């Protein structure tokens, strides 16, 4: 089974029933061109060498695998390790993909990068990749998110990017992607669209997975060094799902159990959440077929999560495939559970996690006490929480 699971996507970009290329004709040739260039770069030792070099000297890889001793003691069960993507340059795993795609765009002769961003982490990572490669950069961001994430907006501007205010629709991530795709449709000749997660039309889900799978490759080596064996559980949060796929990919053929944690928001019964597997059905949005939060007519529903990075109506097609196959189990954590885990990690380990990653920690806090001291859990700490500190203070009613 492991082998079948690793052999996706097929030539048409399908992970079982999910994925594909649902885009306007104008973009189809660009997707074929991108696929060809990407597959060539994968086999090109020069490209791989440059990427590896930047991963080491610029991103700061490998990121540590840290044994969270006090958290483990507090939870009183399995030994909990944290994969420290929060220590990567710019503070989250997003940079792994952004640098890879920036190098590829440069190699394809593109002059300009565009991207969507919700919380701003992928926008900052793309702006960083653009600065590094000398490409110009425009970031689409919903006006709701611009208001909530002023710090990241300023960071992107410092990095030389232009931040474009998206005022249509719900004015959040989904609408920023629509605007990004419209821009790409208009400027496809000189522009590369840096999709920030394992979503969108083929080859994005494949390419982003490959750039992120460095997380799991490192973690596998590191846990073997620490413990002399593979882990029993892997836990990661799932928005689009790139940090989760990045951690899981190299373990798909192992016996490790895997858990993806979606945003439960205010609870599934309230309808205010972003748990596509708990509350959605199969649909097609923004280039890919996957699980989607939609109404009975097929219009896309609004979502809610305390963490902007998980606040999205669809999920990467490979996750839908992994769910159907039973290889990965998907659950959710509510806003309140994530906020408690956010404070728990700060207090026990001196690490302030991103609210996105706090959803994975919330699941670890539920699971670890039920396991024995002999069992090993790895949690992907996908980003750091500096960006969320103001937001959390506001929720707690504390003026800063």
């Amino acid at each position: 089974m492991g082998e079948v699971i690793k052999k996706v996507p097929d030539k048409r970009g399908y992970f079982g029933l999910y994925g594909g290329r649902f885009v306007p004709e104008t973009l189809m040739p660009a997707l074929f061109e991108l696929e060809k260039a990407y597959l060539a770069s994968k086999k090109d030792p020069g490209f791989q060498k440059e990427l590896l070099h930047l991963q080491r000297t610029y991103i700061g890889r490998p990121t540590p695998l840290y044994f969270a001793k006090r958290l483990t003691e507090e939870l009183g069960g399995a030994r909990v390790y944290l994969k420290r993507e929060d220590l990567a340059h710019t503070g989250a795993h997003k940079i792994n993909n952004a640098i890879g795609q920036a190098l590829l765009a440069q190699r394809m002769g593109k002059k300009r990068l565009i991207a969507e961003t919700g919380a701003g982490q992928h926008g900052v990572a793309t702006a960083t990749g653009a600065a590094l490669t000398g490409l110009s950069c425009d970031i689409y961001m919903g006006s709701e998110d611009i208001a909530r994430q002023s710090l990241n907006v300023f960071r992107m501007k410092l990095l030389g990017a232009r931040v474009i205010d998206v005022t249509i629709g719900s004015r959040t991530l989904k609408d920023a992607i629509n605007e990004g795709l419209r821009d790409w449709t208009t400027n496809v000749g000189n522009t590369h669209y840096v999709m920030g997660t394992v979503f969108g039309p083929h080859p994005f889900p494949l390419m982003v997975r490959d750039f992120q799978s460095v997380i799991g490759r490192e973690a596998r080596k590191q846990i073997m060094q620490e413990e002399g064996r593979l882990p029993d559980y892997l836990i990661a949060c799932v928005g689009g799902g790139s940090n989760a796929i990045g951690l899981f990919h190299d373990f798909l053929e192992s016996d490790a159990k895997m858990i993806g944690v979606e945003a439960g928001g205010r609870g599934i019964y309230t309808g205010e959440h972003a748990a596509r597997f708990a509350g959605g059905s199969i649909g097609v949005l923004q280039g890919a077929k996957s699980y989607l939060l939609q109404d009975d007519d097929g219009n896309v529903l609004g979502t809610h999560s305390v963490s902007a990075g998980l606040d999205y109506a669809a999920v990467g097609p490979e996750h839908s495939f992994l769910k159907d196959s039973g290889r990965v189990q998907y659950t959710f954590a509510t806003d309140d559970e994530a906020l408690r885990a956010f404070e728990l990690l700060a207090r026990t380990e001196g690490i302030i996690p991103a609210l996105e990653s706090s959803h994975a920690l919330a699941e670890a806090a539920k699971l670890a006490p039920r396991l024995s001291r002999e069992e090993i859990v790895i949690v992907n700490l996908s980003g750091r929480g500096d960006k969320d500190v103001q937001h959390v203070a506001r929720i707690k009613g504390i003026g800063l």
Partner: protein
Amino acid sequence: MSRISSKFKEIRKRKAKAFIPYIMAGDPGLARTKELVSILEDCGADIIELGVPFSDPLADGPTIQKAAQRALQQGVTLHSVIELVRSLRSFTQIPVLLMTYYNLIFKYGEERFVGDASSAGVDGIIVPDLPPEEAGNILMHAKKADFDIIFLLAPTSTEERIRRVARASGGFIYYVSITGITGARLSLDPAIASHIAGIRQESGKPIAVGFGISTPEEAAAVSEFADGVIVGSAIVKQVEGSEEDLRLYLNALRAAIR
């Protein structure tokens, strides 16, 4: 032969060109859409394109995005637009196409959609986010029902894609005049004519051109080399104004398309 194919055949015989206006169904209400269809036909439309509102119209510019939002607020669905077309058939036999995004059809069920739409008198559909590669299933059902699935070509299309899309497209081929989204400014690039000549080498099917055509002058220029001219965003804007202005504008477009 489908109603659309017969229409183009008849127009070709007359050595004329097709005028294909687009309006958003349900903007500002389905009753108004019914009246607008009569006005469009009255002003010389050959085929009518009805937009079905979707929450995330990624091939559309601001004018049609806003029209879709207004229609969604009215509770307009794919089902209610199909029923609207059924009610149109009591007074007109003009060919009617729907234009919408794939998720609405996927959710409705492709087989059920083709069955319901063709029995209601819908003649075909344009789905901008459905390239022929992803359309195998709906094409199979459409073939049985003599229902046209119209595919799009763009200035970026390669020769290989021109062959594939031209072969798959039913009724006519929709050529997107600009590298961009609906309602963008048209630049009447001489390359359009040569692209269309290229498509004609691959296929004898009629070619209609749309995206960004707003003035009668532009419509006239495009109709020199196309079999049909599609005008969308500019009409959607005019629908908000007076009926008299709308008729004047439609008549001017009609006169320009020859």
